[in-house]
């Protein structure tokens, strides 16, 4: 049985606005990671959240190792969701690997997207000649090894702890059911698709205006990568955050929301930015 993209990717729609804002989670988690940021946009936008196949509450039976061997498969999911929901003028918000997924989708169907908001993007994680990605191949193998040991069952990843949060019991329930409950095989393949990818040549092709949020002291996307993005992405607004780490939408949601709103406000007063540059 083939499930619709909406069911397959556990699409959740919230908010009161008309313009869609599509939030794409990063590697290792699912849509719950947007909990601290997405609600701030529900008044003005149609907030669309989803899980990649193999993450969260997606339809795991739809996982196809070939399709998801590269980020193109994930980009296809994004486009299929957009088509099924007939989303137009989409503001795509992608964290980490999803930034590249969004870029691939926007290069495929540029007319569908109005903006790309890219949080901690990196077109390539592994160093290559003069290019500084921040990692060597062996580092990624270290990650895979750590993941493997944890997914084996010693860690409590697969059985999330009930959160002591009596005033918001719905969160507990949600977490129990889904968060990070990932199949080790799928997680490994997603990690390989993410960290062995090289999307540098896709950057100059982007025609959709974008905002890049670069954290200071980001261990995954170091400043050199941010600068590379800035140089090769046309018409981008580049902002270095006070937030450190790689997940500002979780560690520093207020700053993240503020910068996103600033950007969107500047876009609405100035409808066609310098994309032609």
């Amino acid at each position, binding site marked *: 049985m083939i499930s619709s993209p909406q069911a397959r990717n556990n699409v959740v729609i919230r908010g009161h606005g008309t313009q869609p804002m599509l939030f794409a989670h*990063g*590697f*290792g*988690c699912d849509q*719950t*990671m947007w*909990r601290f940021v997405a609600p701030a946009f529900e008044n003005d936008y149609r907030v669309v959240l989803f899980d990649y196949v193999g993450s969260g509450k997606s339809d795991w039976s739809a996982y196809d190792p070939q399709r998801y061997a590269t980020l193109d498969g994930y980009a296809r999911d994004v486009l299929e969701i957009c088509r099924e929901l007939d989303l137009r003028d989409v503001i795509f918000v992608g964290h*980490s690997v999803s930034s590249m997924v969004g870029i691939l989708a926007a290069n495929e169907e540029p007319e569908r997207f109005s903006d790309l908001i890219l949080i901690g993007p990196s077109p390539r994680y592994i160093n290559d000649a003069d290019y500084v990605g*921040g*990692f*060597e191949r062996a*580092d*990624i*193998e*270290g*990650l*895979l*090894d*750590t*993941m*493997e*040991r*944890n997914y*084996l069952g*010693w*860690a*409590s*990843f697969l059985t*999330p*702890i009930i*959160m*002591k*949060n009596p005033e918001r019991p719905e969160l507990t329930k949600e*977490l129990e059911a889904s*968060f*990070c409950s990932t199949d080790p095989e799928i997680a490994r393949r997603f990690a390989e698709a993410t*960290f062995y990818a090289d999307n540098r040549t896709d950057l100059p092709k982007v025609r959709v205006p974008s905002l890049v949020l670069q954290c200071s*002291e980001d*261990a*995954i996307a170091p400043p050199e990568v941010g600068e590379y993005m800035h140089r090769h992405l046309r018409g981008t607004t580049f902002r270095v955050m006070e*937030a*450190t*780490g*790689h*997940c500002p939408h*979780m*560690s*520093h949601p207020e700053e993240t929301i503020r910068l996103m709103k600033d950007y969107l406000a500047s876009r609405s007063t100035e409808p066609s930015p310098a994309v032609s540059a």
Partner: protein
Amino acid sequence: MNDFPLDDAPCGVLTFTDDGHIIAVNATLCRLLGYDRDALSGGHLQKILSPGGRVFYQTHFFPLLKLQEEVEEVYMSLRGQSGDEIPFLVNARRQERNGRSENDCILVRMRQRSHFENELLSAKKAAENANKAKDQFLAALSHELRTPLSPVLMMSTAMELDPALPDEVREQAGIIRHNAELEARLIDDLLDHSRIRHSKLTLVRTTVDVHELLTQTAEIVRSEGTSKRVNILFEKNARDHFVFGDAARIQQVFWNVIKNGVKFTPSGGEVRVVTSNVDGELVVRVTDTGIGIASEALPKIFQAFEQGSLPTGSFGGLGLGLAISRAIVKMHEGRIEAASEGPGRGATFSVALKTIAPPAPSSAPTTPVLAITSRALRLLLVEDHDSTREVLIRILRRAGHQVHGAVNGAEALELLRTAGPFDALISDLGLPDRSGFDLLREIHSTHPALPAIALSGYGMDEDVKRAKDAGFTAHLVKPVPFDQLRALLDQIAASAL
């Protein structure tokens, strides 16, 4: 910092902010990592994480901690001052303190355990690989074993039915056929067992008349009973005898249970098959007057490779029939149970299945019963295995059909041009020059309505599904069950009328 309460605790203690800044660290952790406290305190977590560990921290550890407020038993590899990696088990919890969120961790070094984990991991991988290899081997083996059985079975069937042959020869051909069928059944059981173990068995459910199914099963087992002088009696007492299930699989269950009854019942004994309705269920009880089952053996008889307390093999068979039957019944949300008053006192097997309303009288028969309609068809047969092709041609011709045989896809396409039109295609799936799926696609591009029957050595459910998806009307597993092939051809003949 000197009054750090857990400074010399027998584990590392560490507190850090959401930014990853270390605000407290105990002496034990400093010692384990080879740092002075001053070098760590106020510093960043990055300093003690390996590059891979940093990614893991950002993609898993921190998001989880933030969302769940605590994590337990997380494996993390930390980097000591000398650059070596030290494995730790980490528990962490968030606390609201000093007007901000602080993350408290305890870290237990795991040197020995880490070695064991490595060994376990590689043992697990080796076991998984061996298991995969075993499955592939079983599938390949069964395919190889089936292929030569196919012509044996068909040839012996043809000889058995040939009125021109002396009775004695026909009888001997019958023995060959019977034994070839037994062999095929053993191979099927091995395949089924492996499918069940990997949850790959799928049901094709329709409305099934269990009474009709029992009539058909009776036909199959009758000869076994007769040859052993065991009387098989049927009492169809149930008023509701329709279930929603997979006809072929349910028949397999009855066949297994009745065959078992015959097998373990001495000459002159009896196997009684009685149906009844109990609490909205259809219960089929198979009672024999055989050797019975010891009470301590009862719980084990549904396990694979078990034959009660008997050493496997003393009554023949692999001991898979009941294990497979139980799995099939379970998939139908039913129950299968065994009872016996002890050795020498016979046994009763009962199968309970939920009933459904009988189909409306106008609807088609529920199971493909052998149709009587028969019309000569023009058939294109594609099969690269020489003996199988020749035997099939012989049998099909004897059934009155006109048959053209091809050894590969190219020859089949050529015949389609020169010797057509045909009423149906019968094709092996593994042809030397292309797959049967590709061949059918090519043929359907010019002859879209041509009915097609797939033959293959693999009976995996995915194959059956793939064949259906590719446009095949039906899929038969070798050795080709001639009854089914004839029934399919009769259906094609009837629908073409």
